[in-house]
């Protein structure tokens, strides 16, 4: 489908790039990304992907906006306190770019819903705040052969890696199993600088965009680490673990696993409503 004059104007700074062009912009407009978590990482990722004109964005979160979120979750504003995060995020994305179709899922991901959820999307962004969810998303993406961006942040530190099916290691190759509950501090316990969420969440959006337009090198087989106090980015090489329980030669995991949850925020009840427009 041809772009309208308004779209050509809106995306002119993309279209002028030789790596994007009208062809790449159309790939973004026809592309879909699921963002799991409308928090610190999900907020900037959602805003940049909406602004970039990714045609369909899904956003998953069971929580409501809380005052303590606003130091970093830039997709929500003070007036949104008490509102469902997915609703607030959808309103912000649509305000930036009415081209984008946003599907909201006000729910927690678990082993019963994750595979079906990710199946509809081209690329998945893990913006969750706990290890059970990170392993759940990893395993589901490996099993469904979906590419995804993992990221983690704490204090002045961040990390990310990109999994592409058949091209390099998954998150479980590196980290094996979730640490015991409370063994590794969460950002609620240890704190996180707001701009760290902005930096790393934006890098996740960049990986999604590069994947959709098919340009550049993704962080497959690499862990990018960012130490903001030293202002140091490092790329650490990772090899696929042939003994990995989910993507290895003799896997033992055939369905995503529900590990015990320990999340950053106090969570409201379990919701399983879907608002699609």
């Amino acid at each position, binding site marked *: 489908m041809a772009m309208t004059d308004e779209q050509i104007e809106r995306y002119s700074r993309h279209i002028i790039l030789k790596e994007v062009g009208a062809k790449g912009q159309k790939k973004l407009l026809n592309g879909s990304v699921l963002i799991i978590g409308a928090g610190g990482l*999900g907020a900037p990722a959602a805003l940049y992907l909406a602004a970039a004109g990714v045609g369909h964005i899904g956003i998953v979160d069971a929580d409501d906006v809380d005052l303590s979120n606003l130091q970093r979750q830039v997709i929500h504003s003070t007036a949104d306190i008490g509102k469902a995060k997915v609703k607030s995020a959808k309103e912000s994305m649509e305000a930036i770019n009415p081209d984008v179709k946003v599907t909201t899922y006000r729910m927690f991901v678990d082993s019963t819903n994750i595979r079906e959820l990710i199946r509809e999307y081209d690329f998945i962004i893990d913006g969750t*705040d706990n290890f059970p969810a990170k392993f759940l998303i990893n395993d589901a993406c490996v099993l469904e052969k979906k590419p995804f961006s993992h990221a983690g942040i704490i204090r002045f530190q961040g990390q990310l890696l990109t999994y592409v099916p058949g091209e390099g290691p998954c998150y479980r190759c590196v980290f094996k199993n979730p640490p015991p509950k409370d063994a*590794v501090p*969460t950002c609620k316990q240890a704190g996180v600088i707001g701009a760290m969420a902005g930096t790393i969440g934006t890098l996740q959006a960049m990986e999604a965009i590069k994947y959709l337009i098919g340009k550049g090198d993704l962080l497959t087989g690499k862990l990018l680490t960012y130490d903001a106090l030293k202002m140091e980015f490092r790329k650490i*090489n990772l090899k696929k673990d042939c003994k990995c329980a989910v993507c290895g030669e003799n896997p033992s995991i055939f369905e995503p696993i529900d590990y015990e949850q320990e999340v950053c925020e106090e969570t409201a009840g379990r919701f399983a409503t879907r608002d699609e427009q």
Partner: protein
Amino acid sequence: MIITVAGEKKEYKEGLSLVELIELEKIDMPEYVTVSINDDFVSSEDKETTVLKEGDSVEFLYFMGGGC
């Protein structure tokens, strides 16, 4: 001998074990840290017995669960 730790070249005694390196580098909660030597992961069974050699490149990979 010279070993590269997290991208930085450092001098250590000959025959340094991984356990000794973890102590010297003050790695917090090493049981939850993934170690790679020359891009190969060290399995948890091998962590106790691994001895380092000249020119090795060691990385410590930390769990980061935040996102909220």
